[in-house]
């Protein structure tokens, strides 16, 4: 297959393709892999085996990982439950609480830009007699705390609001949300999969009762995640969704994924030690990318609040250029688009639409996800390449030409198809 031509020079030593999609997944940090290796072949015991050294060794490793995770989010090891990842953690938290607190109420509050693991879980609960309020977001992607206050009633048992959004990187005001929940005696769950290890999270200070996190978003392995479940003030109870051997305080049965857990623990330890420096580094790279793109291109639009934002995220619309055609031109760079053409459903991103952006702006969006292993040389190449391809595609864009000619595109009678 031929490749897409470009006039942008590749600097010596730059390895292509460049990975800049770190919200989707991250590479396993070599230090994480190193920590995991013995638990596949030598220390392979079942952590639930109580009567021999293989089991004890595995259990010890699991408990050490629990400590590492707990320290990162300001809690104790006893409040960490292992799962297969954030999707399971979200399902367990929401369904488990809904089931356990059914006597107290049937109302759950969430918001429209949550991950599907939360939204689809809530939709299923609606079929089982629960009432769900989906709060809107403002143009900057944040919820309005007044909306949340108004939505709460005496049947509300749970508020589930993400800490950081996976598409636009916007940070919700979780500490304020948690405070509001505690005042009203409502449990607060947060899907913190994009936030943990990237920005400081303290479950006590932030008033979080239940929190989902995942290994592969923080340079750990795929297939492992955790759920923080508060034990005091209040003691949160969760109905198990998987029955079996009663592992994990009865909340999640199944033999523990020991190598994965060791990896998750190590990833959390590294994140805790390096978060501050890494955040500064990623913010600098992200701003460099943003400044280059904004200085060279007109009609670019940053999606989501830049004030309340993950360090490594940049979601930008290159208006009058369709996202998939842009991805095609920059096919030596791995990023994502909110364009319908790139989604399985052929619908543009519901997150971008929730910000009140037109479908045309959503179709033009690119998500850059910078991570630990990205370099300035990569950022400079990515910026140059995107600028080159956007300019090329705008030469082909009838919309860009019409706007240059002063035509108001909203006044045209488009034939939808």
């Amino acid at each position: 297959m031929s490749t897409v031509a470009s006039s942008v020079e590749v600097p010596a030593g730059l390895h292509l393709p460049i990975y800049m999609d770190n919200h989707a997944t991250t590479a396993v940090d070599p230090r994480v892999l190193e920590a995991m290796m013995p638990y596949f072949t030598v220390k392979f015991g079942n952590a639930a085996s109580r009567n021999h050294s293989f089991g004890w060794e595995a259990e010890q490793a699991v408990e050490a990982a629990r400590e590492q995770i707990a320290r990162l989010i300001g809690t104790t090891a006893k409040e960490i439950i292992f799962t297969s990842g954030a999707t399971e953690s979200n399902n367990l938290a929401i369904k488990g609480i809904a089931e356990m607190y059914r006597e107290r109420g049937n109302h759950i509050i969430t918001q429209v830009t949550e991950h599907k693991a939360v939204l689809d879980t809530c939709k299923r609960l609606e079929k089982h007699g629960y009432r769900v309020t989906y709060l809107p977001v403002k143009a900057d992607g944040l919820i309005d705390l007044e909306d949340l206050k108004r939505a709460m009633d005496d049947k509300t048992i749970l508020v589930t609001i993400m800490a950081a959004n996976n598409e636009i990187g916007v940070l919700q005001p979780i500490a304020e949300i948690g405070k509001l929940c505690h005042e009203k005696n409502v449990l607060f769950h947060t899907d913190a999969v994009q936030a943990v290890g990237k920005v400081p999270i303290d479950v006590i200070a932030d008033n979080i009762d239940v929190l989902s996190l995942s290994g592969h978003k923080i340079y750990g392995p795929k297939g492992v995640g955790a759920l923080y479940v508060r034990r005091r003030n209040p003691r949160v109870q969760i109905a198990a969704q998987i029955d079996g051997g009663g592992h994990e305080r009865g909340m999640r049965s199944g033999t523990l994924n020991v190598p994965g857990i060791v990896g998750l623990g190590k990833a959390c330890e590294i994140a805790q030690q390096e978060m501050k420096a890494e955040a500064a580094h990623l913010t600098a790279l992200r701003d460099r990318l943003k400044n280059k793109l904004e200085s060279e291109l007109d009609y670019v639009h940053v999606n989501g609040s830049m004030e309340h934002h993950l360090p490594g995220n940049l979601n930008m619309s290159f208006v009058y250029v369709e996202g998939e055609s842009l991805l095609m031109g920059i096919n030596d760079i791995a990023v994502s688009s909110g364009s319908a053409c790139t989604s399985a459903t052929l619908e543009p991103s519901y997150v971008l639409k929730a910000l009140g952006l037109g479908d045309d702006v959503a179709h033009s969006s690119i998500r850059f996800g910078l991570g630990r292993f990205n370099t300035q040389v990569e950022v400079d190449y990515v910026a140059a390449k995107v600028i080159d391809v956007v300019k090329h595609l705008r030469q082909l864009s009838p919309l860009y030409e019409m706007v240059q000619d002063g035509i108001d595109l909203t006044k045209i009678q488009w034939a939808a198809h």
Partner: protein
Amino acid sequence: MAYSDRVIDHYNNPRNVGQLDKTSTEVGTGLVGAPECGDVMRLQIRVNPETQVIEEARFKTFGCGSAIASSSLATEWIKGRTVDDALGIKNTDIVKELSLPPVKIHCSVLAEDAIRAAIGDWKKKNGVGEMAETATATAR
């Protein structure tokens, strides 16, 4: 999504990009699609009034690589044909030529629509459609 070499070729080297004077009576303009749907094609033709041969074709497309390739190919194919001959181009021909996967068939449909819209515009400007209909009626 893996693109065929033909799609990549048209994406890299789009044929006949640009615009014609849409106020000219010899020029027909077709603007199809919608920004909200993620694709808009503008296809223009300049027709020789004597021979009804499409002597020039131009396009601009906002859309995915397959949409760009479909419209680029369409301009290549209609150039040198008479308007009636150009109306014979089917979206399936474009699908075949560009090896478009099922999810991209709508791009070829849009390109066919663009050809029809451009020719329709030219016919309307020149009263050709009515003449043709009259001719058909007489023949019957």
